[in-house]
């Protein structure tokens, strides 16, 4: 029921037609949503359709392709580098998520206390998350440099190693290196989000449990963790999507090397689609991420709806 704007003042100008149109909620809503719908339609929905069309042809840069059906998907399925990339992506997402959640939760619990310099500490802790990833990843690459690595220097002087570790030259170590960088970048996001969740939990609940004789570990497991679960779920699902589709860290650290051993979906799609100019195959590799991302988004939507209903 729209409240009709009855002017009680005689000197107001009569409502112009545009204004009267905007008095209708539906017209106003439409006008307000047009810029958003146009931009998202042009640069998300349209490219998505184009991507699918591209993936079923054999286009290259400057050469419009013929329809080839699922040939591109068949080709990448039989490509051993693609299979490695799929394996790497799952490994990378799984391992980093576990570490980010564990360390992030630990850091959040540390920050959930009162101590001097808390605000400053929190501000500094977020730095890895706000500094452009490519730039901070270069600092890591320099720290992992085969000849000048400060980490090797440190470990050597602590007596942990006796000869240099070639961090980015060995496939397994290279994977470990990019996992470390991703965890480093993601921990602040987990910590600050979970801290916000922790702060909504009333301390009285923990106190009551303590009076009933619950040990710290029991208090965490039976009081804090269940109450924190909704926030945790959203943060994890969010992070899984970002990590699964990650590009920057691998591109800078290894470029997919050594010998294509550390590619993820996105870096391999870039190498094939932009590097070698096989647009269709690159688009197919990118789109191969879609089913999994879609699944995660569905889980997230269902979860949010369930939480809202409650």
């Amino acid at each position, binding site marked *: 029921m729209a409240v009709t704007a009855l002017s009680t003042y005689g000197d107001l100008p009569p409502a112009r037609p545009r204004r009267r149109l905007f008095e209708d909620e539906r017209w106003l*809503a439409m006008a307000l949503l047009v810029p958003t719908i146009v931009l998202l339609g042009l640069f998300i929905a349209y490219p998505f359709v184009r991507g699918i069309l591209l993936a079923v042809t054999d286009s290259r840069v400057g050469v419009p392709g013929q329809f080839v059906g699922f040939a591109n998907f068949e080709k990448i399925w039989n490509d051993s580098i693609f299979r490695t990339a799929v394996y790497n992506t799952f490994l990378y997402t799984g391992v980093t998520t576990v570490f980010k959640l564990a360390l992030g939760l630990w850091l959040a619990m540390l920050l959930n206390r009162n101590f001097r310099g808390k605000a400053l500490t929190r501000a500094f802790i977020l730095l890895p998350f706000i500094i452009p990833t490519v730039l901070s990843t270069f600092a890591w690459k*320099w720290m992992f440099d085969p000849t000048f690595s400060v980490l090797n220097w440190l470990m050597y002087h602590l007596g942990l190693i006796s000869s240099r570790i070639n961090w980015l030259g060995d496939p397994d170590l290279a994977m470990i290196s990019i996992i470390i960088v991703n965890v480093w970048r993601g921990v602040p996001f987990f910590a600050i989000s979970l801290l916000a969740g922790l702060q909504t939990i009333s301390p009285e609940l923990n106190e009551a449990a303590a009076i009933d004789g619950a040990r710290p570990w029991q208090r965490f497991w039976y009081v804090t963790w269940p109450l924190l679960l909704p926030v945790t779920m959203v943060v994890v699902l969010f992070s899984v999507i970002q990590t699964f589709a990650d590009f920057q860290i691998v591109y800078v650290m290894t470029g997919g090397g050594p010998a294509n051993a550390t590619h993820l979906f996105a870096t391999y799609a870039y190498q094939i689609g932009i590097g070698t100019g096989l647009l269709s195959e690159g688009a197919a590799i990118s789109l191969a991420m879609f089913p999994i991302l879609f699944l995660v988004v569905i889980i997230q939507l269902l979860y949010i709806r369930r939480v809202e209903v409650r």
Partner: protein
Amino acid sequence: MIEGALWRKWVFFYIPLAFFLVFLLFPFYWMVITSFRPDGELYRPWNSVNYNPFWTWKPTLDHIRYLFEETLFASWLWNTTFIALMSTAISLVCGVFAGYALSRLSFPFAGSLGTGIFITYLVPQTLLFIPLAEIIRNYHLGDTPWSLILTYPTFLIPFCTWLMMGYFKAVPKELEECARIDGASRWQAMIHIVIPVAIPGILSAGIFAFTLSWNEFIYALVFLSSPGQKTVPVGVTSELIRGDVFFWGPLMAGALLGSIPVAVAYSFFVEHYVSGLTGSVKG
């Protein structure tokens, strides 16, 4: 605080916290120290004698001078700032309008539109960059800042909308109705009553969007080609590495200087940033 003896406080609090701080901040320290260290000290093997990697007694500005004299670093800084400010402004306008419509107006398909925008929020840039590169070329936007100013809002608008919906929902309906009884149109009530109340939300969304667009990499890497058009992350990546040779001094100086604008913006709005971050997750 932790109950019990002092040693418990050290073991369970100070030492872990110090561990986290060192882990999270050391790369930045390393960036700073490398930026001011002369090349002669930089390229000494990790196991050479009398080598102290953590400090230098001969700080130099050579690397920074190299950046500004031998590369187009100044243009990259300007390009990144311009693109980040423009795309943030566009996204804020769109996000505030869309957030208002979705949270305070009732119209057909409001629910499904809201879900649609939420889904686009979760679309990563790496899913669409290849078809998008084609589209950008077809629109003749390639190698111009507009290719980024128009595409960055695709990941900023959904986030801004989502965040603003939360803020608008908290503004009481009565406030708006009072204004409308006094003769304000819907449009006027929105501009003069509801939006001013939600200014903290707009600041949060703005600072968050600014850091996100400063951080964006793959679109900038694919859409821009000439050195003068590049943004800081892309310029540093492509122009400071020649084949296999990394110019680590200028690279770290570039990384440091490229981080400063976003770090300064962040330091002014830490609280807004944090509420934007947590708001973006909680919705």
